[in-house]
């Protein structure tokens, strides 16, 4: 049986409803052209050819975001061989907003390649559009942040995200809230400083700067070393572009990237979807406001003891 992936699920829903929405105005082209990201937003260019897999970025993230203690020290390389849910490569969780994975590439002279992974901070984030309570914001600096006080834990963003990034914290049983990388927005990016992982990296695998400059820099690096790099910056156009951009010397699908996402923002599908099903807009907010009130009331009872955990935006 073929597994239905989340994105096809969204797309499928739309295709099915397309007949209904024959008169719908929000065409994909229109939707994708409508925003395209803030012109001066910041970004990060990640060059996998320089990563040595030391996990310093993971430690920096843990410290900066005040995340719980890891199961193993950040110096422990055995995590690269762990099997989770039948897969060797780790995913981001509510306790680890960034992870580094090792990919063994037969015949690569330098040995294995390492890939750092975290929220890509899409130009047109599907999590944002899919969120019925507007918990998400794309800031002019480029970060996709969320307001955990508003989040009702409906998990729609988990389904919408083409990169499977948002995770949920169950530490408070009554009100699971979304947890993911916010590009260190509240402690750093807001003040013009780079995310903690970028600054901590001993190899300077990542460059922090204006997204448009980083794209130029990326293409320059490719041009200077055509024999080294794959001639592609992942994230320049994928799903409408992401704030995090990637260079690699191995084809991107061999380092765990989905190379079939296309350049259409996921937002387009979702927008169509919303246009087609206006009932969603009228009924769901009421529904979720109800859920939310319930949840917050329960939450309030717990707030005193849990104060330290509620490090939302």
């Amino acid at each position: 049986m073929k597994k239905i992936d989340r994105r096809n699920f969204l797309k499928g829903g739309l295709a099915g409803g397309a007949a209904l929405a024959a008169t719908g105005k929000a065409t994909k082209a229109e939707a994708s052209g409508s925003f395209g990201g803030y012109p001066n937003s910041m970004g990060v260019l990640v060059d996998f050819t320089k990563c040595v897999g030391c996990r310093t970025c993971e430690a920096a993230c843990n410290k900066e975001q005040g995340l719980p203690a890891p199961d193993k020290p950040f110096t422990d390389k055995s995590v690269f061989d762990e099997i989770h849910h039948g897969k060797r490569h780790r995913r981001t969780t509510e306790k680890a907003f960034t992870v580094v994975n090792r990919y063994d590439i037969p015949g690569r002279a330098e040995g294995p390649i390492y890939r750092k992974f975290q929220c890509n901070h899409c130009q047109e984030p599907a999590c944002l559009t899919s969120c019925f309570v507007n918990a998400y914001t794309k800031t002019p600096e480029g970060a996709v942040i969320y307001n955990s006080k508003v989040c009702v834990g409906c998990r729609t963003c988990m389904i919408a995200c083409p990169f499977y990034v948002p995770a949920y914290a169950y530490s408070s049983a009554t009100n699971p809230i979304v947890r993911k990388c916010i590009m260190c927005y509240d402690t750093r990016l807001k003040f013009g400083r780079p995310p903690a992982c970028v600054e901590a990296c001993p190899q300077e695998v990542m460059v922090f700067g204006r997204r448009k400059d980083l794209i130029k820099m990326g293409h320059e690096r490719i041009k200077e070393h055509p024999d080294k790099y794959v001639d592609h910056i992942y994230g320049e156009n994928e799903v409408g572009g992401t704030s995090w951009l990637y260079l690699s010397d191995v084809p991107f699908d061999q380092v765990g990237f989905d190379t079939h996402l296309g350049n259409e923002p996921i937002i387009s599908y979702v927008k169509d979807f919303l246009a087609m099903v206006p009932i969603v807009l009228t009924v769901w907010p009421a529904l979720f406001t109800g859920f939310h009130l319930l949840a917050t009331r329960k939450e309030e009872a717990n707030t005193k003891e849990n104060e330290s955990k509620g490090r939302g935006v």
Partner: protein
Amino acid sequence: MGGKTKKLLRVAVVLAAWGLAPHAALAADGPGVVELGSLSNLFEPVTFNHTMHTDVAKSCAECHHHTLGDAPIDKTCARCHRANQPADSVACRECHPANRFAADYLAKLEANPQLYHTGKPGLKGVYHRKCLGCHRTMDGPTGCEDCHKMTEKGEAFYRTGKFAPPPAKHEAGEE
């Protein structure tokens, strides 16, 4: 920099001490054993044997680019720096910023569109790319603690040593 006279003086000293071996003369160029410690925080300073490294490297340019007047090793650099013009600064820390992404440094880059090499990596980045890069191909030390011991602050940061997670939890995460 003292330039030629300083160099000659060093050569003279070395010649007097060790005789006429050409290697010794070469080693006279630059410091002997130096401590690289301007960034030290999570790790202790690195004891860098400059003399030994000038023996190991084929040319000073392997580390110093063309700044000492040697031909660049990297072909992409040679395209524009064929003249091997010596530079005013030679120490990495004088050109490569300690705080590569600080807001004021980024602002400086942006303020002057004439600036060249705006993508110049920071000091921590070039040390590791250069030092580790060569060590991986020439059998030098590559482990993080081979070059610098971790400080207590580093152990807390990496959650290792006496800050390591308790073993019970450790095992649980093993499967």
